């Protein structure tokens, strides 16, 4: 039996990249079951590389990455199915002819494996996943007819239909209006609590997640800081990573890319 205190994702001095380009260097990080971890960092800091690594799409060039106690190179299909993934928005063709239910059923395909057809149980799991995101009333609607926020809900349901242990979300709120952003984040927090899912959320929006996550991981090619939001969101740490374009107020902290241009 695996020890429940063993991390389910463990980076051990792992570096990732392509020949001549290091995207992430010397990362040591453990993520435990049931944690809600936010991954932040400026553009090009290696957030998406971290995401691809956890999905088993990129092996470390140095060091080790263990996912579910498996070296990431040896990750089998059934391991991958245990990670529910929400990719960045904007990848889906609006006119792609697929219904909401057909989209969510795709979440069952990896878990089912080759040669097996989805059955009634898979259909039920897909409908349960849709109910979790409050989209079960739209099962036969064309995906392209939904609003951006609704599409994100459907994609979260697709990830849930995998019956994952980990939910990996790559900038789930980008391109949504402010109310929808809050709704999506609240939904993710709700799923984390209700389904005891380990959540790894990659985002630019520190303000949105700082009060909701257990831990923050701050990347800038290296692992710059990791710990509780209070430990990571210190002015000296943030200014080192984001430069001077940062305004910290008593209640909130704002990252203003063009602050100096206006003042």
């Amino acid at each position: 039996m695996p020890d429940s205190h063993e991390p389910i994702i463990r980076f051990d001095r792992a570096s990732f990249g392509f020949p001549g380009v290091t995207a992430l260097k010397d990362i040591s990080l453990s993520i435990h079951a049931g944690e809600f971890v936010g991954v932040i960092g400026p553009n090009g800091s290696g957030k998406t590389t971290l995401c691809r690594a956890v999905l088993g799409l990129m092996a470390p060039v140095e060091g080790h990455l263990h996912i579910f106690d498996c070296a990431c190179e040896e990750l089998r299909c059934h391991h991958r199915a245990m990670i529910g993934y929400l990719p960045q928005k904007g990848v889906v063709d609006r006119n792609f002819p697929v219904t909401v239910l057909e989209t969510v059923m795709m979440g069952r395909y990896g878990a089912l494996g080759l040669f097996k057809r989805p059955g009634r149980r898979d259909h039920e799991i897909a409908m349960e996943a849709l109910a979790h995101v409050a989209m079960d009333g739209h099962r036969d609607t064309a995906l392209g007819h939904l609003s951006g926020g609704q599409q994100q809900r459907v994609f979260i349901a697709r990830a849930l239909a995998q019956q994952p242990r980990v939910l990996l979300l790559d900038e789930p709120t980008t391109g949504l209006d402010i109310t929808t952003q809050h709704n999506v984040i609240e939904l993710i927090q709700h799923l984390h609590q209700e389904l005891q899912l380990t959540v790894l959320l990659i985002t630019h929006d520190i303000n949105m997640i700082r009060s909701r996550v257990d831990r923050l991981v701050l990347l800038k090619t290296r692992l710059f800081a990791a710990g509780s939001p209070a430990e990571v969101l210190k002015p000296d740490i943030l200014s080192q990573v984001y430069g001077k374009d940062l305004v910290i107020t008593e209640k909130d902290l704002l990252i203003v890319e063009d602050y100096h241009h206006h003042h």
Partner: protein
Amino acid sequence: MLELFTYDFMQRSLLSAAMVGGLCSIIGVFVVLRGLSFVGAGTSHAAFAGVALAYLMGWPPLLLAILFGLATVWITGWVEEKGRMKLDVSIGILYTTTMALAILFIGLMKTYNAEVYGYLFGSVLSVTSEELRIIGGLSILVLGLLLVFSKELYFIAFDQEMAEASGIPARRIFFLLLTLVALTVVVSLKTVGAILVFAMILIPASTAYQLTHSLITLTLYSAIIGVTTAVGGVLISAVWDVPSGPAIVLLATALFFCSMLLSPKGMRSPSPAHSH
């Protein structure tokens, strides 16, 4: 007109047209959705180069067509996977290279060979019983594999990286799709010819695409349109004595433009997602 159906050659033509129409239109769904339209065109010209070489050397034409077709799609897939070049560039290079080879092989032939041109323009009315058996066998093979791997093929057409991340062996499925495209092209060469097979793959699926928002319905509509236009084209060809390949393709094109006029997608008002 009914007496047409009593001729053996007509029965063979209609049967081969129906099989090729069905096969092309079903694989066309995955080709259109995965954005591989140009691969169909490139492969058909590569397969034609194989046919030309076969006639030059006295080898079996279908075998060489398959070899040339498979080599082309696999090189294309490999180049895309390595991310070195965009798919349309690599297929464009292979397309013109294989066409140059075909012209070279034809040029090297000492005499004019009408049969070779039959593979370029298609001659459904001259399909032999043996060719019909080969078309039937390969069609069953391709359709069987499409059916067995349909859920994976739909998923990689939707989003290959998401499919791979959720445990689908996406790269192997992509190469399977490319292989099936090559086999479909070869199966269709004799019936519709290298130039027009591309249309048989592209048009029925694109027509169905206008009419539905469901993957399953799209495949069904595409197959119906593919079989109907192929059989209809052969009948038009026989009755009015016009070449069969253009008759099939022009009938399919007419249907495509009708579907655009009737498309619920065209008349849809912009949804909130439109703004993102």
